[in-house]
């Protein structure tokens, strides 16, 4: 790799290429959303969880503000806080998202309380805030550049909702409508800033890496939402046997590994009948153990881990 910086046009092309390859408009969940294939429950899970992402946006934008010594930059960037938080109660993007939540049939306060946010979604969104907090101004701004691709996805989404989900009130779509104009405006500023301030090849590469990382984060958010509606069951290749060293526990033996499952895990495995979704399994266990904290989170994390290890397969 040569060390000379890319020309502004070539650098911009690199940044855009990341979106072409990795932006979450290509995630299977988004594809299904835009094809009209999501169930009401899936759409609700998405709206509920994506709200957590929305709440992290002003937090990371505040962090970016603290990194800049330039009044002109801050004047421009603070606009984003106004966009999300509004200038008065009842205004702004977060409010619009809560209205969307209501129109898809969720209770506004319930969504706003952030109860029921999936652990994988929480991790993805927190990772974004951490990425921005730990970065210098250039990289922090670069991580926002997924906005370059957001205008288009909002348009697709609006059209898809009107066509495929007529039960979602047009009122509720105001957030998407607002972003079709805000995202390109924000992206133009962010892009100009990054192109101007990434002076060395190394800086440019750090910016590209930040956009890649951000795409990964958005992708994993949808992975978690999607997994919540899959129906796990024991892999046909697994042999479950008693763990003779741990009463109540089992050992799941597969072709490449043996996985020890404790008693609590065994209760979850027993609920994986291929008919219940992960969400339903989590509710079932929560109802059975009302006094244990974080049951639903633990269930989702356990199911994800077992699927990764091949103990469970999910359709």
């Amino acid at each position, binding site marked *: 790799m040569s060390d000379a910086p890319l020309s502004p046009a070539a650098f911009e092309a690199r940044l855009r290429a990341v979106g072409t390859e990795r932006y979450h408009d290509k995630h299977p969940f988004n594809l299904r959303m835009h094809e009209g294939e999501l169930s009401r429950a899936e759409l609700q899970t998405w709206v509920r969880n994506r709200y957590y992402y929305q709440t992290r946006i002003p937090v990371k934008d505040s962090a970016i503000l603290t990194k800049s010594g330039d009044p002109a930059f801050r004047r421009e960037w603070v606009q984003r806080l106004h966009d999300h938080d509004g200038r008065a109660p009842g205004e702004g993007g977060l409010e619009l998202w809560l209205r969307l939540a209501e129109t898809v049939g969720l209770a506004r306060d319930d969504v706003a309380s952030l109860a029921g946010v999936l652990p994988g979604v929480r991790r993805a969104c927190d990772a974004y805030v951490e990425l921005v907090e730990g970065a210098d101004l250039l990289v922090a701004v670069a991580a926002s550049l997924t906005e370059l691709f957001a205008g288009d996805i909002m348009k697709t989404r609006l059209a898809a909702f009107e066509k495929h989900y007529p039960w979602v009130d047009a009122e509720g779509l105001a957030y998407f409508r607002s972003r079709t104009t805000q995202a390109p405006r924000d992206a133009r500023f962010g892009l100009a800033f990054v192109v101007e301030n990434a002076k060395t090849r190394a800086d440019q590469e750090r910016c590209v890496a930040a956009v890649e990382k951000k795409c990964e984060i958005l992708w994993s958010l949808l992975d978690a939402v999607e997994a919540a509606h899959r129906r796990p069951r024991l892999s046909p290749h697994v042999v479950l046997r008693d763990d003779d060293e741990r009463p109540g526990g089992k050992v799941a033996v597969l072709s*490449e590994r043996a996985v020890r499952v404790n008693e609590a895990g065994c209760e979850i495995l027993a609920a994986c009948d291929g008919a219940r979704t992960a969400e339903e399994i989590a509710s079932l266990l929560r109802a059975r153990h009302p006094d244990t904290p974080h049951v639903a989170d633990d269930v989702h994390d356990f199911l994800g881990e077992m699927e990764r290890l091949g103990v469970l397969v999910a359709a």
Partner: protein
Amino acid sequence: MSAAGAPRLWNLVAELTYRCPLRCPYCSNPTQWSAIRDALDADAWGRVFREAAALGAVHVGLTGGEPSVRGDLAEIVRAAADAQLYPHLVTAGLPLTESGLAALRDAGLRSVQLSIQDADAEASDAIAGTPSFERKLAIARAARALGLALTLNFVLHRRNLGRVGEMVALARTLDADRVELANAQYDGWALRNRDALLPSREQLEAASAVVAAERAKASRPELVWVLPDYFSGRPKPCMGGWGARLAVVAPDGLVLPCHAARDLPGLAFWNVRERSLRECWHEAPGMNAYRGESWMREPCRSCERRAQDFGGCRCQAFRLTGDAANTDPACALAPRRDAIAAARQRPASDALRYRDARSS
């Protein structure tokens, strides 16, 4: 730790024979393989399996050489299943047949790991040293049709790293559950052929990117890819630790902590023909030589990674530094890491020496 001080045995690797119709130039069998005869019949293996289960084992990998050259493979599989071990077959795909595989399934086989030498028929046959690609595909399809778990194993090197994408595509076509994209380990035959096999860093980086892109496409098949220790600066956590979880029983009955430990000088391993597996696992001096951490020298002794990588591979330490107790030279902290650096700087060669029966 069990009462006698040795950890629980989880996994048995049963090397049923070193015979094989293929001649891969990176074969991990001993270079003197032809002098080691198949000394255990199906009954003897059955006894070993029952003893392994009693020591805690839940799984047995039936491997070789090529296990299907044995006429009694179905009996051996049945003995493993009867002992409550999960029987897993590691095969090159021949002389195994579809009906033979069905018989193994009926005997209790659960899963198959099939080696394929390349994504391309000609290149695969060239590395295998014998026409075999089409047979392998037939066995993969049969495994799928029989409901067996299917892993494909591609050993990677300079000549095929550029086709990792094609390998994954082939695995998708064959509907494999898992694909091991396994960079050659430079021991045994592979060490002899290192100049012809060792890839460049650029090749590895390109392959890494391909794997990442393929992983993003779909969660299945599971893609196993690890940057090889020669390039990562991180030694491999060999066998999950010496004598820590896994025992290899060689065709002659010798019980080893890994498939290559036979050649380490000064280590006495014991044989299941003469003693119980329990004794061979718990008490053989060779088994205990590098168990735990007390044998370690600096920098491993005080390194915080020692519980994760156990100081790396003893065989590699011996082969490249002359002393198996040294830190694996693949480690960036190893005093003798120059041994790896030197290998990477050597000019590439085109001369492959295929596995053969001459001992040298």
